[in-house]
């Protein structure tokens, strides 16, 4: 399959980060320690995939991105 054009994947990357920060309390600390940031991102992505009954891979896929782009409530999914 054709690779996503760079713009959309950067754009999609932004969608993912914003979503996880807003609804899964991803901390904006990737600047300080990139490895820890990637690990955090994977954990939070798994939490989101688990919540929505998606395949829990911790890896971005089209189904996960599709759910992230759906209109929704602004309250985080983590009760706390």
């Amino acid at each position, binding site marked *: 399959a054709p690779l996503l054009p760079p713009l959309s994947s950067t754009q999609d990357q932004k969608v993912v980060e914003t979503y996880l920060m*807003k*609804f899964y309390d991803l901390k904006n600390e990737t600047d300080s320690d990139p490895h820890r940031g990637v690990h955090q991102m994977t954990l939070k992505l798994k939490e989101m995939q688990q*919540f*929505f*009954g*998606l*395949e*829990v891979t911790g890896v971005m896929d089209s*189904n996960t991105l599709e*759910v992230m782009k*759906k*209109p*929704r*409530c*602004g*309250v985080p*999914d983590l*009760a*706390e």
Partner: protein
Amino acid sequence: YTTFPGNTKWKTNKLTYRIVNYTPDLPQSEVDRAIENALQVWARVTPLRFTRLYSGTADIMISFGRGDHGDGYPFDGPDGTLAHAFAPSVGIGGDAHFDEDETFTSRSSSGYNLFLVAAHEFGHALGLSHSTDPGALMYPVYSYTDPERFSLPLDDIRGIQSLYGPNPDVTPEKPDPEKPTPPTTPNACDPNLVIDGITTLRGEMMVFKNRFFWRVYPQSNQPELTLIKSFWPDIPDNIDAAYESIKADRVFIFKGEKVWALSGYDVVSGYPKTLSSMGLPATVKRITAALYDEVSGKTLFFDNKYYYSYDETKRQMDKGYPKLVEKSFVGMQGGVTAALQYRGFTYLFSGSNMHEFSSRSKKLHRVLRSNYFLGC
């Protein structure tokens, strides 16, 4: 369902609300009505009672705003985040904010229905967090339901009653006659599951049940449960049948005498059409299952124990039909309630059983459970 940490709730059942400002999308009377009805969704199943204030501070302050609206949680423009609300507490607790950059509607499936969004936000204002049940009102993703026929799902009732208990004015022996039993969400692992319809879709599979369908991906054993209306607001719930025409690269969905068409995940314009547009005789008022048979190139339409054969190329019914299903599919028992052809086998469903036939020889191989493809 989930509640907030410590099961945060109001200390009193008598709450006040105030509509601080209005959206220009709707007449004020429509906003008043939507808000009142949304609060009644929760009052109907709990001891909670709501009184409207027109000035001063109410427990639930309702307002419309865009972008940064002063609470530290800015909205994001059209779509995306529609609204948010705060858990029960003093001050901003219980308040509900709606994103003015959305188009709120009251009587159509376009835009975002204010009653549905408000009912969800008031769930938060009363102490519910999000539910993982795709059929629940407290599921985080918006999906359209006809507000006139809205009935609070059982998951939400259980959640709010875990905080406040049931409505003392309704005696369980005599449930509210106007309200049907609360909708529940089908369980893929229910061995007695009876499905409404099943079809392939460009390599994926869709299994329909009530308001939902499961999306089954070949590369994954995790089917995804989704509301039909979250994809296609105009496709009905409780469908009769569905099949994929490889030739037309369309999925056809049937309910009663109507048929809808999907191209991928898009609804094809010009539908719904009538069953006769698919070549079925006018005497046929509904079908119970359908499949495209790659071996013969024919489409088979089932009406319980009988079936018709339709030639998509000639666009006409084959002669000598309807025939008895069990004459051609020896060993089939019961009326056919769903049908599928997949990887060289023909699957005929009847109730909670799925009969697997070889597509070529029509020989019965196995009798399995109807949830076979749902990865239990």
